[in-house]
């Protein structure tokens, strides 16, 4: 039985959920709409930039894990 007992969650697993999951309260509410003040970030852009920039600026494997 290997029910994962690792308390240290891998960052990639976390980002799969935090950046691709969770309720997205954007789309209809952005900074551009006057009296609503959600600060919004385009996470898709981030994800693609992470993928694109694998060699840099992140020094990958050591930083993670």
């Amino acid at each position, binding site marked *: *039985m*290997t*029910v*994962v007992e690792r308390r240290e*969650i*891998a*960052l*990639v*697993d*976390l*980002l*799969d*959920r*935090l*950046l*691709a*999951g*969770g*309720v*997205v*309260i*954007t*789309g*209809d*509410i952005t*900074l551009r709409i006057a009296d*609503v*003040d*959600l*600060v*919004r*970030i385009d*996470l898709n852009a*981030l994800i693609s*930039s*992470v*993928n694109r920039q*694998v060699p840099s*600026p*992140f020094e*990958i*494997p050591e*930083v*993670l*894990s």
Partner: protein
Amino acid sequence: MTGLRYVYAVCRPLGAPLQAQLTGVVGAPVKQLPHHGLIAVVSEVPERDFAEEPLRAHLEDLDWLSATARAHQGVVDALTVVTTPLPLRMATVFRDDSGVRTMIESCEEHFRATLERLQGRVEWGVKIYLEAEQPQEATVAEPEPRAASGRDYLRRRRQQTMAREDVWEKAEAFATRLHEKLSAFAEDSRLHAPQNAALSGTAGRNVLNAAYLVPRAHSEEFVEVVDRTKDDAPGLRVELTGPWAAYSFAGELPQEGA
């Protein structure tokens, strides 16, 4: 206090208090903001780091991203002990409490429906890896000390390629089978993009990266199903993570006209 409000999750009113010392992003204390029979779980974050522009810049900083993600997860994790939280996308930030209340009002129906759907459920992550290059002895049936001719060489190369394709096919078939089996067991499933080995720092090639929504009460059974399959496929590795709050099943908000 001129901080912005970072919202971790929306929940039903908690039946038990939050841990007194619970801190969130940037170490700030976590508070409940009740509104319309729901609560937003929030903490203050400094504008200089969480306004749109600095946030954008910070998100390129892996250390910052990691610390923020772990803090976010820490709060959501603490919430799962006392309730079924509806986690929000990382870095959902509002100007002030009234911004958060407005958000709750405008999404109220969706929140209630989703909380209802997720009540008592957790998420399990299952990943399948193709272990690094298999030993190639298997393909060399008759020992040929060295390629005697170009034709021999080509034939050998072809055998190796076919062996590799065979490994891929088997991996794919195994992943499909396991995913079907787990999907049938789970209430819902999501496929995440396979993880980049460079980012995960994990050995082997990620061929399945899935999430399954499982009633907490059936979790043990789910884990057993995964565990039993593990040894079915030599050369493949199955990894289980969880239980997570149901991040992958929180759902998109329906688009509103205005």
